[in-house]
Each structure stands twice: as structure tokens, then as C-alpha cells.
């Protein structure tokens, strides 16, 4: 029986962020589906895992964690010896990775998530896309991706020479946006486009896609 349990929903970007790292680190885990359509995530037994009533949550033995980016950091450090190395032990190298992890969380994700909601998830739920919100956020995303284009012209990956958490954290929202009109923002920037193609082709990410298709 797996000591690691990942609780969440397969359409949730934050849940996918946790699943991909578990595959990257080649860890055995149990995926526990949370049925958000019946409000399971707001019920007491789930609130004991995440008091904000959001997915995902992780259990590793007695440890309980929420916030996908705290979970990925914990997994990357705790299982540093297994699977893909996603962090640096050297504090200066890790500092640069931390910078771009924050950039993803503070600059990229607020904008990308709005587009994922409007263009990716609303259609799935039969809701109407708000074109004004899409236009506003595509303009914002373009500015962020200009900074990325410049960064990736000088660095193979966002955090440095190797694939790290800084790149991994982008995968879930990226995947959604690649199926939408916003894909053009990535395609039109050569370094960004090459980076997207590289990281979305990683075997661990393909395993997350396979898990989504099975359910």
C-alpha cells in the first residue's frame, strides 16, 4: 500500500502539478479522486487535509500538506536521491531556481490561470467564454512571455542549465493553453516555443496525460 496519497481532481492544474513530480521522482503513490462536482472538497474530511477547501492535498505517511508548490518542494528535497534531480544543493544555483519558481507563481500563473478558466475549463462545463477577459489576459501574458523569451535566449531552462521545479510548475497551465487560441503567444516566440516543446514531451508529463485519458 502506497505511503504517498495524492488527493485531487484530474482537471485541476494544481493537482497535475503534484502528479507530474511524483512521476518525475519515480515514486509509488495512490491517486485519490476528489469529486468537486458534489462539493467533496468543501466537506469536513477534506478540510482536514486542506483548510482552504482546494485541491490538491498530499499525504506521505503521517505528513499532510497542501499548496501544490509546497508539495513539489517537499517531494523534490525529501526524495532528492530518486528519479530526476529537480533542485540544486548549492544555495546560489538554487536561488536562481527559486526566483523563477516565484515568477511562475506571481507573474505567470495569475494570468495563465484566468485564460485556462475562460478557454479551457468553461467550455468543458458548458459555460460562455468572456472575450474581454481573454483579450486583457492575453495582453498581459504576452508581456510576461517577452521576459521569458529574453531569459530563454540566455538559459536553456528557466532556472538554469537543467530542467527544475521552475519549469515543471508551468506544465499544467501550458498544456491547457496549447489547445486554445492562446497557443499563438507561445508559438510566435522561438525560444519559448522550443522550451515548451521540450518540457511537454517529458515522459513524466506524458504519464499524467495518460492518467487523465484513462479516467
Amino acid at each position, binding site marked *: 500500500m502506497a505511503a504517498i496519497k495524492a488527493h485531487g481532481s484530474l482537471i485541476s492544474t494544481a493537482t497535475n502539478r503534484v502528479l507530474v513530480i511524483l512521476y518525475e521522482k519515480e515514486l509509488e503513490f495512490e491517486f485519490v479522486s476528489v469529486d468537486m462536482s458534489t462539493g467533496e472538497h468543501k466537506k469536513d474530511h477534506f478540510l482536514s487535509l486542506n*483548510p*482552504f477547501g482546494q485541491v490538491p492535498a498530499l499525504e506521505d505517511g503521517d*505528513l499532510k*500538506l*497542501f*499548496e*501544490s*508548490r*509546497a508539495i513539489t*518542494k*517537499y517531494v523534490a*528535497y*525529501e526524495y532528492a536521491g530518486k528519479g530526476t534531480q529537480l533542485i540544486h544543493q548549492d*544555495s*546560489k544555483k*538554487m*536561488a*536562481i531556481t*527559486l*526566483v523563477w*519558481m*516565484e*515568477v511562475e*507563481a*506571481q*507573474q505567470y500563473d*495569475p494570468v495563465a490561470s484566468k485564460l485556462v478558466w475562460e478557454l479551457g475549463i468553461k467550455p468543458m462545463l458548458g459555460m460562455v467564454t468572456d472575450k474581454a477577459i481573454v483579450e486583457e489576459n492575453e495582453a498581459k501574458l504576452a508581456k*510576461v512571455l517577452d*521576459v521569458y523569451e*529574453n*531569459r530563454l535566449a540566455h538559459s536553456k531552462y528557466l532556472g538554469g542549465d537543467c530542467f527544475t521545479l521552475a519549469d515543471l510548475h508551468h506544465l499544467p497551465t501550458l498544456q491547457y493553453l496549447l489547445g486554445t487560441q492562446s497557443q499563438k503567444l507561445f508559438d510566435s516566440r522561438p525560444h519559448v516555443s522550443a522550451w515548451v516543446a521540450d518540457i511537454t514531451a517529458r515522459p513524466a508529463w506524458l504519464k499524467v496525460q495518460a492518467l487523465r485519458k484513462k479516467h
Partner: protein
Amino acid sequence: MATPVKVYGPPMSTAVSRVLACLYEKNVEFELISINMSKGEHKKPEFLKLQPFGQVPAFEDESISIFESRAICRYICDKYADKGNKGLYGTNPLAKASIDQWIEAEGQSFNPPSSTLVFQLAFAPRMNIKQDKVLIRQNEEKLSKVLDIYEKRLGEARFLAGDEFSLADLSHLPNTQYLVSGTDKGNLFTSRENVGRWWDEISSRDSWKKVVDLQKGA
């Protein structure tokens, strides 16, 4: 003697003050270099080399240059682990994981509504920008829901991540300071018993008092 650590930005910036609080907690000497944002200094090429998004703070330590206040704080705690408050970022991986969890909660759930309120209520009037009443009401409601969760959590533990003051609590200091001392929304915090107790305790730390003094002096 040149101090290797440099912080760029005005102390009144919430993100800059987050970094200053961490440096004081860790007893790390630093040089604060002012950036004149009203003159657009933060959007000029020399500054964009340090921070490509044109925001404050930027940070240099010996040969490295980094940005994003929460990344800077984590770096300071890693590099200067043996200085000042040694437990600020936990002394073992499990403690660190719990602290990271609440730093993320701050960044993802607390910061968006609280920083909108700080801008609307504390900065907009000074900048002659018209306040958006709808935005204020919406974000007050969002922040209230977050603080209800904090109220429950702080009834179970003295600080957010456990029994000790940590980087998770520190991350909340800048926005809360403005809301409690500079706006009429302080009651969001003070009317909640555990949150009020927690705010009193974390804001009376010497390190935070030094930051507030710097803000007043600027």
C-alpha cells in the same frame, strides 16, 4: 568596508519590506539602495537588468543577483542558516515543508485580496488615483473568508506553521501593517480573537519594528 548584500527599492514597498524583515531577523547586514519609482527609475534599462519585470525589490549578494521577495527570503535563510533566527525557515525538512505550505497560502490566497486593498486604501489616495469601491468590497469579502480560515488555524497553533515564528508569518507582515495602521480595515484582523493575538505578537518583534521605523524615516 563594502557590505556585500544590497537591496534595491523603497522601504514603503510591501515586497521590499518583506525582504528587510527577513534580513533583520537573520542579523544580516545590508545596504538599502533607494529606487525613485515616481520618476520611473524601476522601468529604466539599468534596473531592468536586475529585475526584468521592472518591479521592486531587486537583491544582490556577492556575485548573485535575484528578485521576487519570497525567493530572496528563502535564499537568505539558506545561505545564512547559522545567523540570527536559526529556526526562521525550519531546522528540519518536515518543519520546512509546513512553513512552505503557509508561505504559498500567503502568496496565493492572502496576498491577492490584501494587496489590492493596500493599494486601493493606502496608496491610491496618495497618488491621486480614484478608489474603486466595487473592487474594495469584493476584496474585503475575499480577505474575510481567508481570515476565517486563519482564525481556525491560529486556534490550533500559536503561529501559522506551528509553535515558532517563521518565514510564513513574516510574509504576512507588510500588507497587514498597512491595513491595520493605515486604513479603516484593521478590524478585519483585530475583531478575530486568534488572528488579533497573532498580529500583536508578530508585529511586536524587534525586526519588524526596525522595518516600520525605516518606512517612517523614508
